[in-house]
């Protein structure tokens, strides 16, 4: 059996043993055993991905499994990329779980949660490895049901976990139904195996192809958390235990992108221009709306979740423009855009996993997610703070970070115009503007997250009592940080793999060369040395710090300037809400915050105010505009439905009589 096959089978077997081990082992050992086994599953996933990327395609038929349909696994370079991504995240989460779940058998360390985690990782690995429509749908739904159980892990401690679970279940199932209808329609028209579909995709009628594409787009955009279909994402990621949110945010949402690329490029073999414009438009909307909501969010994990929506938006922009260029005929630029999108999936997986793991250790130590109550962790949890800062560097797409590399590649693919084309002449600049504004607000968001969340003085007693996380969590975070650093400094190691993927998606290999240390667009003078840039920043900063230390006397602590009227208290610090207030005022009409001020007067006179209560909440406008009316309509439908069964026997007999008369009449008339 070639390496990909063995690796993938070992991964799935390890996942199964981990699940069983979770049920068998006592609470003290459960987290350690399951953590290591999940890490093992992840590493064999990475091994499988790497083998697939280096050209060892693999497929296997298992007709006896999954009654009525049979299963078929097929791993090509595209699925290899996502296997690698998921495996890497799973390794980190596995090691992290050892410390995070801890010896106590409650919450994340409980038996159901620890047994569902490996099955979730196994399902995540199964989706990209699926080779036929039924297997893909099985993996998809297995992923949904296990993540549903994991999201509900801490339902005993917080009341809002329940509503988050219901939102998540409902929207995931809605997405699944659209994907099910789309893919079964495709399977009926072109055969269930992906190989058969690829062969007959050319002869499919455009109507079927468009319908299948739209259905799959809705389902996959819902899973990816793209904006119009995003309300589950901030809820599920905020309420889920952090190691699960890391897996979901870094790995699971990417499978929405995988689905789009697989169906859009590979199975249907590309499509008309409006397909790719829709994807780009959804991407732009997700990027802008996601980052704006993240900028004003005060819940740390909700901020990170909305930032996932934003990064998914950027990835979809890349995929959209890859399709647009392909339609315009500029296959080189299409390959470049797709390469940027794929690299950003990996980069985002890296820094977002690091951020969620960091947030998890902060929340575990302080017990709260609200940025307005955190603060002062840089002294109490130095390692976590530095690692979160490293993650934020990547997330804010600042130069030495890995986010900057893929954003640079994305901008380059938009800057080089293939020629006339009115649509592109408008779309490309708007896309650049969207990416720029998103990057700008993103930087402000992450400065807020790190600045108010981790630096200066603790705002509440809970934050004051924080202590550093157990070593296994720190080790996991360091591993992810190193991976991000490697991706930031040597992104070119991924280029041969990306080249192979893009070639397999009917595009030419991307025009990138320039050896190990530089990214050079072949045919243009645009080049960029990520290695030397990072080295320069570190060396010059060190030099300047050392040189400056030689001048003047030693540093001393002094009371900060308090306008001379007494000690500064922690209440005087800028909180996340106040930090984001200018930004929220700038985007006031887009965010439409709800403010209510109720003033209570003394009974005697209306002029003397007893108390003023001010509450401000920034709602999710898309949710209020589209989802709340839908829910109210369903409620009304439910209440009207009660009229169907009023309990009166004569109504029921009347139903049966009308049915009988209808059947008899049908017989008579026809």
């Amino acid at each position, binding site marked *: 059996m070639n390496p990909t096959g063995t690796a993938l089978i070992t991964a799935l077997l390890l996942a199964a043993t981990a699940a069983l081990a979770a049920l068998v082992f006592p609470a003290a050992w459960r987290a350690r055993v399951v953590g290591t086994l999940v890490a093992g599953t992840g590493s064999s996933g990475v091994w499988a991905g790497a083998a697939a990327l280096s050209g060892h395609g693999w497929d296997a038929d298992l007709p*006896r*499994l*999954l*009654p*009525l*349909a049979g299963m078929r696994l097929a791993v090509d370079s595209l699925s290899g990329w996502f296997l690698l991504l998921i495996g890497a995240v799973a390794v980190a989460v596995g090691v992290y779980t050892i410390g995070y779940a801890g010896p106590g058998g409650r919450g994340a360390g409980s038996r*159901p949660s620890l047994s569902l985690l490996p099955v979730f990782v196994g399902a995540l690995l199964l989706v990209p490895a699926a080779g036929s429509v*039924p297997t893909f*749908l*099985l993996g998809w*739904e*297995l992923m*949904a*049901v296990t993540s549903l159980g994991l999201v*509900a892990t801490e*339902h*005993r401690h*917080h*009341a809002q*976990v*329940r509503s988050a*679970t*219901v939102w998540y*279940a*409902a929207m995931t*199932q*809605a997405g699944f*139904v659209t994907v*099910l*209808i789309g893919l*079964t*329609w495709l*399977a*009926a*028209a072109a055969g*269930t195996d992906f190989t058969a579909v690829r062969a007959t995709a050319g002869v499919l009628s455009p109507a079927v192809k468009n319908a299948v594409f739209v259905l799959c787009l809705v389902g996959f955009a819902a899973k990816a958390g793209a904006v119009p279909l995003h309300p589950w994402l901030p809820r599920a990621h905020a309420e889920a235990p952090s190691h699960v949110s890391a897996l979901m945010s870094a790995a699971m949402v990417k499978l929405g992108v995988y689905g789009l690329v697989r169906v859009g490029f590979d199975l249907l073999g590309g499509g008309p221009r409006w397909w790719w414009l829709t994807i780009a438009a959804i991407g732009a909307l997700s990027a802008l709306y996601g980052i704006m909501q993240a900028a004003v969010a005060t819940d740390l994990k909700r901020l990170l979740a909305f930032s996932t929506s934003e990064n998914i938006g950027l990835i979809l922009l890349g995929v959209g423009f890859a399709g647009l260029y392909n339609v315009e005929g500029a296959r080189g630029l299409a390959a470049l855009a797709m390469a940027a999108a794929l690299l950003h999936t990996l980069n985002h997986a890296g820094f977002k996993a690091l951020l969620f793991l960091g947030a998890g250790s902060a929340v575990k130590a302080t017990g709260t997610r609200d940025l307005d109550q955190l603060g002062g962790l840089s002294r109490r949890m130095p390692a976590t703070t530095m690692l979160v800062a490293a993650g934020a560097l990547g997330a804010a797409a600042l130069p030495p970070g890995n986010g900057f590399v893929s954003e640079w590649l994305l901008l380059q693919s938009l800057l080089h115009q293939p020629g006339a084309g009115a649509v592109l002449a408008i779309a490309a600049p708007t896309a650049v503007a969207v990416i720029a504004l998103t990057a700008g607000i993103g930087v402000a968001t992450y400065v807020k997250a790190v600045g108010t969340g981790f630096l200066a003085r603790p705002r509440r007693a809970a934050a004051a009592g924080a202590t550093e996380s157990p070593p296994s969590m720190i080790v996991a975070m360091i591993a992810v940080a190193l991976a991000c650093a490697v991706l930031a400094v040597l992104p070119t190691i991924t280029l041969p793999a990306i080249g192979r993927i893009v070639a397999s998606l009917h595009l030419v290999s991307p025009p990138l060369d320039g050896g190990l240390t530089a990214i050079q667009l072949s045919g243009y003078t645009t080049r960029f040395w990520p290695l030397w840039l990072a080295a320069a920043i570190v060396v010059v900063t060190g030099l300047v710090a050392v040189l400056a230390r030689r001048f003047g006397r030693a540093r001393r602590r002094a009371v900060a300037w308090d306008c001379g009227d007494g000690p500064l208290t922690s209440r005087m610090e800028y909180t996340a809400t106040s930090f984001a207030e200018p930004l929220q005022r700038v985007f006031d009409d887009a965010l439409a915050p709800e403010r209510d001020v109720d003033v209570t007067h003394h009974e005697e006179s209306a002029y003397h105010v007893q108390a003023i209560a001010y509450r401000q909440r920034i709602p999710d406008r898309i949710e209020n505009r589209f989802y709340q009316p839908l829910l109210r309509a*369903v*409620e009304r*439908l*439910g*209440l*009207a*439905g*009660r009229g*169907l*069964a009023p*309990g009166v*026997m004569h*109504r*029921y*007999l009347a*139903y*049966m009589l*009308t*049915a*009988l008369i209808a*059947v*008899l009449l*049908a*017989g008579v008339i026809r």
Partner: protein
Amino acid sequence: MTTPMMLALYTPAAAPFLAALLALVLPSRIAVWTGLLAAVAVLASGVTLTTTDATLSVSGALGLLRADALTAWMLLTIGAVAVIACAAAPGYLRHEAAHHRRYLTLIQLFLACMSLAVLADNLGLFWVALEATTIVTAFLVGHRRTRESVEAAWKYVVLCSVGIAIAFLGIVCLYAASVAAGGHGVTALSWTHLASSAHSLDPALTKLATGLILLGFGTKAGLAPMHAWLPDAHSQAPAPVSALMSGVLLSVAFYAILRYRAIADAALGPAYVRTLLLTAALASLVVAAMLLIAQRDYKRLLAYSSIEHMGLIALGTAFGVRIAIAAVLLHILGHGLVKSVAFCASGQVLHVTGSPDIAAVRALAARQPGLAGAFGISLVALLGLPPFSLFASELGVARAGFASGHGWAVAVAFTLMLVAFVAIARHGARMLLGPPAAQSTAPPPSVHRGRGLVFLGIGLTTAAMLGLYLGPLTDVLDAAAVVAGGH
């Protein structure tokens, strides 16, 4: 005919009948175990029939009883659900004060009638057995002597008798047509004879007979618009009884529609039955979805979920292709297993919380982890999520729908099922999840022994295994699908 085959033909009806007689005589503590033994006997005979050569058929008792692959599959379902229901009986009876003897006899009679119905090679005999189940379960539904259960029993008997009488009218018309086409005496209504002489039946009369038969058996199968008795009866009956009724009685009624469809298609062509079944299926899905949204009683919730699943089964039968019928049969088995576990668990929830209202059950997972686990997992399985077999069969129905050109029906059906999914998920989450309220930390009145949950666990694991690997059942499923006229 080898003796184990003959034995397997007679035991499903004889064993429960014998157990019923014993229950009259023996003290209830022993009668419970003889009942369970009878259920195991039915399951065993089902298994023996499946393991032998699937295509072979066994007949006996002057041609009135016959067992082929489809019957074997139905016996398997009846046996499995009966084992779960009878295993739950001791737990249930422990909390009931009186009438143990009557309860146990009627349950066994109920089993005997269902086995007889499935084994009958004669449409008339099938009807008699089905009507007998209504009469036998009438007192089971009214067992608890509360105001609601008496009302439920009355509605159940009247509505079902009226509904099934329509089917009998249809059978009479069919008999007339079969006699006109050369059949005589009791064999004129036998399934095999009808199947062979279907093409010579008078089309107009057969169309009238088909309409009436589908309506009549549709009532007992819980298809809309004849479904109104189902929620009342299943919510008021004792938990094991509603497990049996919802799990397998609906499917036994639908078994007749499955068999009759082959005959009607041969006589009239597939269009007429397909339109009737499609309308009934979509009507059931609409009714179930609408009434699940604002549901207040979790046993009625499970009843409406049965209507939804029977609607899906009718949809699959309407498509008619081989994979659709196989999916329908797998769905019947899967739904039977999981719905019986769900109802037994809901019975224990009713005992623990004392009220059938969804609003009265709070943070069950925090207070009763074992019971909440069984109930929660069975709800997850009912929602059609993997690894349970309902996912595989729903996927089979969807693929068959598109393969037979009814893509629009699949789309409409799955959207309605999505509404039902969200409703059930919301109610389930409200009952199970959430922090335990501060004051109710006291343990429930009788400390809940885990023994009741063991059988529920076995039921769920079987459903999960069926969802991934059918093993020996694969070929009997194919044979049954062929027998049921999957062209």
